């Protein structure tokens, strides 16, 4: 193959000419030219189908309805700690008590983390297996800074955020040189390296298997202790709102548009005179930095870090949340994050309910394994609810409005 190498100044921009099409003047658009191309297309296919579901009620009225529901939802959520609502089975305690608030905060965080991941997979069609790296960078970064420099919380957070931004920019710049499954694998490799590093406990900095504890010296008192769970809850809510706003902003902006177009057809974007690489990198970095932000606040909530937060497992958990909610939809990511977390946390309780003991072993054994229930549920969603929860809701709505008409 003696096609000329790409030019020097803009090596990245000419990449597809090298990677995808060098050996053959392929017709773009026949998406499955090579095995690789077909891989690259898969994430976008996923996102695409969900769009079908979305295109229905995306009317102005539908939009306003969604936003109105969102605002009402936020107000209700903000008031929860002041109310005494019991949801037996779902919440461990009435809503004003720390038990419920802690669980709800966890849900809100996971929703925010899922949202940051949505930016990658839902908007830009980037299937990353390494998103946990940035989440972990946030929580570990902040914990380490608090431990070593003794700075107050806010400057420490700023510092950790900058570090995470640099990390995601650096790794993103490298990983985005490839697409599709290779991209997934390179991100996985980076995250794996981070995970190994954290577990190795270099210089005692990361605490190895055991993780780190939050050094509360620099943290304001109103964020420490169970008595202040309510404040942490509001912090979680605020984080979710901030992340949601930023994600919406990026998604609706030029970069988001171009990233979505890249997801569909990268070559076509270039031919229009736009730069896929930059748009993808921007989305990647914003996604990574937001994940780090969530990770930091998560540290405050849990008063510590564990290596799991940097593991591929955690990324997969985020993926599961996004898929559960419906790929391509912000509300889906939020919903998926909340519901997954509720299930994950509460199934343990459910699986120990004495009622199960009465069942024969064939039923009893699997049902008392929370992961079994979760895994099965997930399979069922993927099989029978394409478009996830949001897709299902929209189908229902579609059916409903058809009936009305």
């Amino acid at each position, binding site marked *: 193959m003696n096609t000329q190498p790409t030019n020097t100044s803009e090596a990245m921009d000419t990449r597809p000419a090298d990677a995808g099409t060098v*050996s*053959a*003047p*392929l*017709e773009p658009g*026949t998406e*499955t*030219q*090579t*095995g690789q191309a*077909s891989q690259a297309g898969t994430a976008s296919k996923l996102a695409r189908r969900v769009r*079908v579901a979305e295109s229905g009620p995306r009317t102005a009225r539908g939009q306003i309805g969604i936003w109105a529901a969102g605002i009402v939802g936020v107000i209700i959520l903000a008031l929860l700690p002041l109310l005494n609502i019991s949801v037996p089975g779902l919440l461990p305690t009435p809503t004003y008590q720390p038990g419920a608030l802690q669980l709800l905060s966890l849900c809100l965080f996971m929703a925010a983390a899922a949202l940051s991941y949505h930016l990658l997979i839902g908007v830009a069609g980037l299937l990353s297996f390494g998103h946990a790296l940035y989440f972990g960078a946030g929580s570990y970064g902040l914990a380490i800074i608090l431990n070593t420099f003794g700075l107050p919380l806010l400057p420490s957070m700023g510092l950790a955020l900058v570090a995470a931004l640099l990390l995601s920019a650096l790794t993103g710049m490298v990983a985005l040189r490839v697409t599709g499954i290779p991209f997934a694998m390179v991100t996985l490799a980076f995250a794996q390296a981070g995970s190994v590093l954290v577990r190795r406990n270099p210089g005692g900095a990361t605490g190895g298997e055991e993780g780190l504890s939050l050094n509360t010296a620099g943290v304001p008192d109103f964020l420490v202790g169970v008595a202040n769970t309510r404040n942490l809850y509001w912090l979680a809510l605020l984080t979710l709102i901030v992340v949601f706003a930023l994600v919406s902003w990026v998604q609706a902006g030029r970069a988001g548009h171009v990233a979505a177009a890249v997801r569909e057809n990268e070559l076509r974007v270039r031919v229009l005179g736009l730069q896929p690489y930059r748009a993808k990198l921007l989305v990647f970095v914003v996604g990574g930095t937001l994940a780090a932000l969530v990770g930091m606040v998560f540290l405050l909530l849990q008063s510590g870090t564990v290596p799991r937060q940097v593991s591929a497992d955690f990324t997969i958990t985020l993926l599961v949340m996004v898929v559960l909610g419906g790929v391509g939809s912000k509300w889906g990511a939020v919903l998926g994050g909340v519901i997954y977390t509720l299930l994950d946390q509460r199934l343990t309780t459910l699986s120990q309910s004495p009622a199960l003991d009465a069942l024969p072993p064939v039923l009893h054994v699997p049902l008392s394994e929370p992961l079994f229930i979760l895994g099965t549920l997930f399979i069922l969603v993927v099989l029978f609810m394409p478009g996830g929860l949001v897709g299902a809701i929209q189908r229902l709505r579609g059916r409903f409005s058809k009936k009305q008409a």
Partner: protein
Amino acid sequence: MENNIRPILSVEGLQAAIDGSQVVESVSFQVPATGITAVLGRNGVGKTSTLKALIGLITRTAGTIELDGERIEKLPTHKIIRRGVGYVPEDREVFSALSVAENLRLAERDDSPRRALVEQLFPDLVKRANQAAGSLSGGQQQMVSLARALLNENKLLLVDEPTKGLAPKIVQEVAEALAEAAKTVPILLVEQNLPVVRQLADGALVLSAGQVVHRTDSARQFLDDEALTQRYLGVQSEPAAHGNGHQMPAGGAR
């Protein structure tokens, strides 16, 4: 030209949907056991979808399909094909990662595939046997696609815009090949190139909005009827000669 031979294909009230949206709305027609039947209509009226529905590539929601006297509307695609249906899809749909030879080998259903016929028709493909089909030019891919259907003995050929993107000379050759094939096997042909239709087609059916709006035993008669072509195809007057003529297209004078 009414004939009393049983039609090779009869379709009654066929409906079909893609992802839940109805694209074929109650189509009924018959394909005689000989000759070429053209399917005409403007872009997006459902020509391709009708063909796909016949062999189950999109979901059939109602209606009956009889191939050579046997009901096939419930059969899966591969079984319909094995009963002797050849299909040439609209977008060529060659397997781009496979070589030309592999594409053709994959299509061989019979014990004695008609390789010679194909090689004689498309010598270019013999030269390029080991080239990845995805790297072929558009026209070459079209040849692969056609060849795949011509390799086997069939009871019926379904051919969707076979001349699209072919050089005029090849268009002629393909048209001749189809005419040749039509001597032994009936063909249901979707075609936008009206001169080719005029040259090849015996009967015709015209679709509009997912329905058959006109049926004729003589495609030529239909094409000659300016009112009809204007109404159903939007064509002012169909050029008399083959598509390779040098006349300005309508409105194309400069």
